[in-house]
C-alpha cells in the first residue's frame, strides 16, 4: 500500500511537477475555456440571426406582399436551411479539419480556427433552440405588440425575444456544457487544449494513467459546476414565472 502511494507520488511529480509540466494542463484548460466561451458567443450570434430569418419566414412569408423583401427572405431562408442541414449532418471533427486544412490553411492561429469551427457548428444547434423559443411565445403577444403600433422588429425586440430568451436559457446553458466537452477534439488539428495538454504529458512521460485521469477529472468538475449553475438558473426562472 505504502509502495503504491509512493509510486503514485513519483508518477505525479513526473507528470506535473518535473519541467513544469502542469503548465500543459493549465494552458490547455485556458485554451479550452477560451474556445468554449468564444464559440458559444459566436454560436449565439449566428443562431440568433438564423432563428430570426427562419421564424420570420415561417410566420410571415405566406402573407407578405410580393417584392424585394419577400425575395430576400426566401433567399435567406434557403441558405439558412442549407447551413443547418450541412452542419448538423456532418461530424464536428470533420468540420474542424476542413476549417484547419482548407479554409484557414495559411493561418496558424489555433484558437481562431477552433472558435470558427465550433462557433459555426454550435450556431446550428443554437438556431433551433432559439427558433423553438420564438415559436413557443403565444401569437397573441405578437398581435398585442402590433396592435399597439409596434413594427415587426420592435415587437420582436421588446415583446417576443425577452420571453423566448427566458424559455430557452436552460437549453442554451446546456449547449455550453455540450460545447465544453466537444472542444476536446481540437487536438486533432494541433490545437493545444486541455485534452491535448494531457496527451502531450502522456507522450513525454509514457505515463497514461495520471495525465488522462487528471484531464477527465477537470472536465468532470467543470461540467458538474456548470450543471449546478444551470439548475440554479432554472429554479430562479421558474420562481419568477409567476
Amino acid at each position, binding site marked *: 500500500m505504502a509502495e503504491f502511494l509512493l509510486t503514485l507520488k513519483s508518477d505525479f511529480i513526473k507528470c506535473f511537477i518535473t519541467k513544469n509540466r502542469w503548465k500543459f494542463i493549465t494552458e490547455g484548460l485556458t485554451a479550452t475555456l477560451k474556445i468554449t466561451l468564444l464559440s458559444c458567443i459566436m454560436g449565439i450570434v449566428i443562431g440568433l440571426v438564423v432563428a430570426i430569418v427562419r421564424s420570420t419566414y415561417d410566420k410571415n412569408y405566406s*402573407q407578405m*406582399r410580393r417584392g424585394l423583401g419577400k425575395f430576400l427572405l426566401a433567399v435567406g431562408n434557403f441558405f439558412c436551411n442549407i447551413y443547418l442541414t450541412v452542419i448538423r449532418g456532418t461530424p464536428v471533427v470533420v468540420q474542424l479539419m476542413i476549417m484547419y486544412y482548407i479554409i484557414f490553411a495559411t493561418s496558424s492561429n489555433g484558437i481562431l480556427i477552433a472558435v470558427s469551427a465550433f462557433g459555426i457548428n454550435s450556431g446550428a444547434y443554437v438556431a433551433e433552440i432559439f427558433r423553438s423559443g420564438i415559436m413557443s411565445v*403565444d401569437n*397573441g*403577444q405578437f*398581435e*398585442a405588440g*402590433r*396592435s*399597439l*403600433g*409596434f*413594427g415587426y422588429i*420592435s415587437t420582436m425586440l*421588446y*415583446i417576443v425575444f*425577452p*420571453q423566448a430568451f*427566458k424559455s430557452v436559457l436552460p437549453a442554451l446553458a446546456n449547449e455550453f456544457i455540450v460545447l465544453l466537452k466537444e472542444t476536446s477534439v481540437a487536438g486533432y488539428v494541433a490545437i493545444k487544449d486541455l485534452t491535448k495538454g494531457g496527451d502531450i504529458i502522456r507522450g513525454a512521460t509514457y505515463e497514461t494513467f495520471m495525465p488522462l485521469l487528471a484531464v477527465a477529472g477537470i472536465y468532470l468538475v467543470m461540467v458538474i459546476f456548470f450543471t449546478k449553475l444551470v439548475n440554479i438558473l432554472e429554479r430562479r426562472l421558474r420562481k419568477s*414565472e*409567476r
Partner: protein
Amino acid sequence: MSDNTIIKVNGLKKHFTGGTVKALDGVDLEIKKGEVIVIIGPSGCGKSTFLRSLNLLETPTEGEIFLEGVNITDPQNNINLHRQKMGMVFQQFNLFPHMTILKNITLAPIKLLRQNKKDAEENALSLLKRVGLADRANAYPSQLSGGQKQRIAIVRALAMNPEVMLFDEPTSALDPEMVGEVLEVMKELAQEGMTMVVVTHEMGFAKEVADKVIFMEEGKIAETGSPEEIFQNPKHPRLKEFLGKVL
C-alpha cells in the same frame, strides 16, 4: 362620407385557405365619431376577422378601409401609425407577462409616442386610478385576476390615446363574477365619447350602451339597427333564431 365619419369600410372580403373559407364576404360599414357599435352573431360568422381586419391584423383579400379619410389598406401607408390610433382589446388579454403592469402600459407611449418616462407613468397611474387598479402598478400580470388583467389591457390601449377602441369578446374568457367590472369600464368609456367597436355576447351591454347593433351571418352583415330594432323587432330569420338562443 360625412365629416364625423371615422371609419369607412367598403366591400371588405377576407378569404382563408385559398378562398374555401369566406370569413368576410363583402362588408360595408360606416362608423361615426363617438359611436358605439356592437357586433353580434353566431360563432364563426366572421366577427373576429372583421375586427382584426380593421387594424390589419388580417390583411383583407378585397375591399378598402378608410380611417379618418385615409385608405389604410393601401400598401403605401404606414400601418404602424394607423394602428396607434386604434386600440385593441383581446379575449385573452395578451398582457406582456415579463413586464410589470406599469411597464405594460407605458412601453408603447414611451417608445412610439416619445413620451418621457415620467409623463407616461403619471398618465398610466391616472388611468389605473380610473379603473381602480392604481395599487397594482408594480405587480406582474400573473398576479392579477382575469377581470383585473382585462381592465389593464384596456388601460394599455387607452394610454396610446386612440381614436377608436376595438374589443373582441373582452369578457368571454372571464369568470362570470368578473364580467361586470370590465363592462363597467367599457360603459364609462362609451359615456366619455370614445368610438368603440365591440364584439360581445353580452346582450345587456349591447342594449344599454350600443348606438348601433350589427348582426353578422356567414361573413356578411345580415341586419343593422338600433338596439330596440334589433332586439325588439328582429327581421332576419337567422337573427330571430340567434336571439332565441342567447336571450
